[in-house]
């Protein structure tokens, strides 16, 4: 793989994962050549899901600009394929700034075919990118959740995300409806510090 950012972890992929419904999926990072697969994935999404996209990736031009971020090293996209290894059923992307004051921060978002959402696939994709982010030395991840995405918010909390801020009426979906946006943050260094603390505390109990 030619992209610097992908080098550290490409060896692990493609990887097979078994979902809650016992269906196996194949996950691997996406590359610009996956453009057609992505386009048909976005176009296959039902309208109510498409309403939620931050940008209209059903438009090939917009999608191409989106994919240009990958060779620039500003984005990692993880895709999940059906067992045929061809049909994309979900993707999750991690954007990294690299410059400026938020260069230690990554932003995550994912989209999924609705019928796959109870299978735990969303969580697998997010966790995959949390690992990538930690291997890239990021300290913090954020995820912008809309006010009615209750299950997503709960899932993120289970993965160590905490609600950091609420932006009132900050999002307008493609139908024109306003939504509050919750900024969910995952302080990854903190998480691991917790594990270190746990181990240190167990093994160096206070002196009598």
């Amino acid at each position, binding site marked *: 793989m030619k992209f610097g950012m992908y080098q550290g972890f490409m060896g692990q992929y493609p990887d097979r994962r078994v979902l809650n419904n016992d269906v196996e999926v194949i996950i691997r990072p996406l590359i610009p050549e996956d453009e057609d697969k992505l386009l048909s994935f976005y176009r296959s999404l039902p309208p109510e899901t498409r309403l939620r996209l931050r940008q209209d990736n059903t438009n090939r031009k917009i999608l191409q600009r989106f994919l240009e971020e990958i060779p620039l090293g500003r984005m990692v996209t993880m895709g999940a394929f059906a067992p045929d290894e061809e049909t994309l059923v979900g993707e999750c992307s991690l954007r990294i700034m690299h410059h400026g004051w938020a260069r230690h921060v990554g932003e995550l978002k994912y989209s999924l075919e609705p019928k796959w959402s109870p299978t735990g696939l969303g969580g697998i994709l997010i966790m*995959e990118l949390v690992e990538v982010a930690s291997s890239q030395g990021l300290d913090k991840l954020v995820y912008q959740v809309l006010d009615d995405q209750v299950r997503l918010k709960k899932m993120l909390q*289970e993965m160590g995300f905490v609600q950091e801020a609420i932006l009132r009426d900050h999002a307008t979906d493609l139908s024109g409806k306003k939504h509050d946006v919750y900024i969910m943050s995952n302080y990854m260094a903190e998480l691991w510090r*917790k594990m*270190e603390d746990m181990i240190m505390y167990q093994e160096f109990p206070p002196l009598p």
Partner: protein
Amino acid sequence: MSGHRGTEVRIAGFGGQGVILSGMILGRAVSIFENKHATLMQSFGPEARGGACSAQVILSDEKILYPYVKAPDVLVVMSQPALRTYLPTLREGGKLIYEQDLVKLEEGDELPEGATCYGVPATKIAEGLRRRIVLNIVMVGFISAVAPMVSMESARKAVLHSVPRGTEALNGRAFDMGYRYGVENYGGES
């Protein structure tokens, strides 16, 4: 006094390697996820200072009466001093599991009769995951493969149950990699 003993496990290494956590995971796997019996005693006091750290775990189908490990069936060492201290206590036919970059078996390190040994580059595997702290979880995965005392599923569940929220995925991966290393290099025993 051979009966009523259960499987004795000693895990030993330096403080900060996650020795006690490994013991807790084995204990949880047995007592919570397999509904059998386990005890964990940790070495406190001066011997827990100066870097040495050791966990005594006993696993059994019956209630455990004597909670201290005297002659382990399974000895897991993650430091050279730990090997030196505890190798003489390994039971005949027991299993020695060691971190192969931190512990070198040397001439004169005599294994008891019938004992087998299993090395794993757990630190390297953990470093491959960019979190050295998951070394002990890699060890637990490896132990589950080469000296299965609980099912792989219970051990894995116990890992996820024992680590801080938000670190489950990477710890799960660490476990899997340790387990896989065991199966691929020693054929597993399950």
